[in-house]
């Protein structure tokens, strides 16, 4: 109780000194200056309640790679969220402890500060509410937050980091969630060839990429709009349906039948390295995916009008597909992925 009162007074102190940097400096934990790329969507509101700080991010990164988050200390967030794959992985469906196979394809973690909905069905709107899910899910880490806290508090390094990040050594679930989210907010990908061309940094598209960009603007951009290459809407575009009866797409959140098998339009950034594709990894390659759209998709009452009004397909010639793929590869950000071109 005393602790709570003290924490509240610290918060009050912070709030009242919002415009007075000296108070924040007294923790010696400055806010990080994040470079917000031009033209990106607005920041998620939660970002402003949990702005990345020097030690918050350092702690979050350490936790992101911490295998003690899992029941048997065998996997960390980074086991499925691999940097070189835009923090996705190469499996059709995520793999948890003891080889347990998860429900859906591991989503990439990039540019999440600018995203309004998280996960394939958008069930979370605050990034801070997400880390608990893999920690407790049977097919993922199968642990509990008290179990995690119990492990972390035996390590001086963590006690010090929590102190530096939050003002005292107390390890709480919220501090764990907030610091992981802070780290994730810093994962911004905006240095692809596409970005460099847009910013006139001395590179230009090849002929094939230029033609691919043309096809993209004609046939893809309605859904994959904005500089994140997603309009963040939920759509059923008739991909093969997950045979798992647990799957309902967006409808498991909203309870609306019209949302059945709708999924969040995914970003196309770094798509070259996030195969396989689809909510449960239906497509091994981009070519397969484009062939599928070209051949015709699964029909449904709520199939997206763009497909429905077009004989349930997005017609693409072989050349168009190859050019489109060339263009999509310009969205690969080698610097972000820390891979060589």
């Amino acid at each position, binding site marked *: 109780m005393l602790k709570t009162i003290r924490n509240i007074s610290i918060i009050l102190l912070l709030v009242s000194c919002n415009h007075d940097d000296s108070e924040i400096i007294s923790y010696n934990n400055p806010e990080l200056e994040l470079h917000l790329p031009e033209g990106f969507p607005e920041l998620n509101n939660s970002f402003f309640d949990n702005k990345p700080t020097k030690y918050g991010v350092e702690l979050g990164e350490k936790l992101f790679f911490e295998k003690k988050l899992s029941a048997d200390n065998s996997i960390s967030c980074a086991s499925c969220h691999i940097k070189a794959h835009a923090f996705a992985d190469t499996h059709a469906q995520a793999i948890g402890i003891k080889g347990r196979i998860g429900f859906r394809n591991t989503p990439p973690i990039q540019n999440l500060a600018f995203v309004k909905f998280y996960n394939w069905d958008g*069930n979370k709107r605050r990034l801070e509410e997400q880390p608990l899910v893999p920690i407790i899910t049977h097919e993922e880490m199968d642990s509990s*937050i*008290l179990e995690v806290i119990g492990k972390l508090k035996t390590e001086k390094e963590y006690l010090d980091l929590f102190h530096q990040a939050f003002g005292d050594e107390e390890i709480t*679930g919220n501090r764990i969630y907030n610091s992981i989210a802070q780290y994730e907010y810093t994962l911004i990908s905006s240095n692809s060839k596409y970005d460099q061309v847009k910013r006139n940094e001395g590179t230009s598209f090849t002929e094939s990429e230029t033609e691919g960009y043309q096809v993209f603007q004609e046939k893809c951009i309605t859904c994959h709009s904005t500089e994140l290459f997603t309009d963040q809407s939920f759509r059923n575009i008739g991909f093969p349906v997950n045979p798992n009866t647990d799957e*309902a797409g967006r409808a498991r959140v909203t*309870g609306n*039948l019209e949302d059945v098998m709708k999924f969040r339009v995914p970003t196309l950034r770094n798509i070259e390295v996030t195969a396989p594709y689809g909510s449960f990894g239906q497509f091994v390659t981009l070519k397969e995916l484009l062939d599928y759209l070209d051949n015709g998709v699964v029909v449904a009452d709520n199939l997206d009008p763009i497909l429905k009004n077009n004989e349930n397909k997005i017609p693409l010639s072989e050349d168009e597909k190859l050019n489109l793929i060339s263009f999509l590869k310009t969205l690969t950000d080698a610097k972000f992925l820390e891979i060589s071109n």
Partner: protein
Amino acid sequence: MKNFNKGLAIIFAAVLTLTSCTEDEAEAIPTVPTTNNVTLEFNNTFGEDAIVLGDATSAEATVNTSTEGQIHHFSELKYVISNIRLINEEDIEIHYNINDLDNGATVVNQAKEETLQYVLNNIPSATYTKIQFGLGVKSNLNTLDQEAFPIFYAAAGKNDTEMHWEWGTGYRFTKIEGFYGEDNTELSIHTGSTDDGGQGVDAYRDITLELPTNLVVGINAPKIVIKADFNTLLSGATTITLGEDNATPSIHTSVNMMQFVDNLGGNGDDNITGMFSVTSVEN
């Protein structure tokens, strides 16, 4: 034991007789404690028949027939009760640890007899006319917060309970497993909230039950016998036919889930009892 009970009964009768004869002898009235316990007893039924659980081919399981003529029986039956309130003669509400899941919420599990009785401790002595409680957990407490409520978190999450809805970071409010139709097709009906203040559904239902006779808390620790009639699952406000393309079996989706929620817990508007009723009050 029987003799002992009989003995107790005689003593009780004597006390009652004494009580009724002491109106003008105030000093002889036994002291009424300021509080006493109240037991809630949950009887899960199909209509008038107590539910017996059983696997697909069980001969013992209670089989129910829906309005649409679908036979069904359950192998598993659990639900969460929280936010318990008693309303006294003066219309004053007594809140029973309504914001403390560790001390004010319980998982009723048909397979575990001890969970069919839930004891409310230290209820102020008074005469009560109504009981209110929630089927499920209010959204503000429905966050799987193990740090705040470790006891309820553990009770709900045990392997044989599985009332954590991990992906939604909330509790399952009802968990029904069983079989329907002549072929004993699996049914799996789980409810829970997905709302976060801006999207999703609220599957919590507030139940209000008038007591058929007043509940007198004082010298005695009385009991309220509550019937939960699971016939309403398929044959409630909405008549539901189970089939491949609706709600079964699915442990994740909230498509059609709200029909089950309203059938079991009412719609919170013109139906505030759902499947529940008070059979008796044992003072």
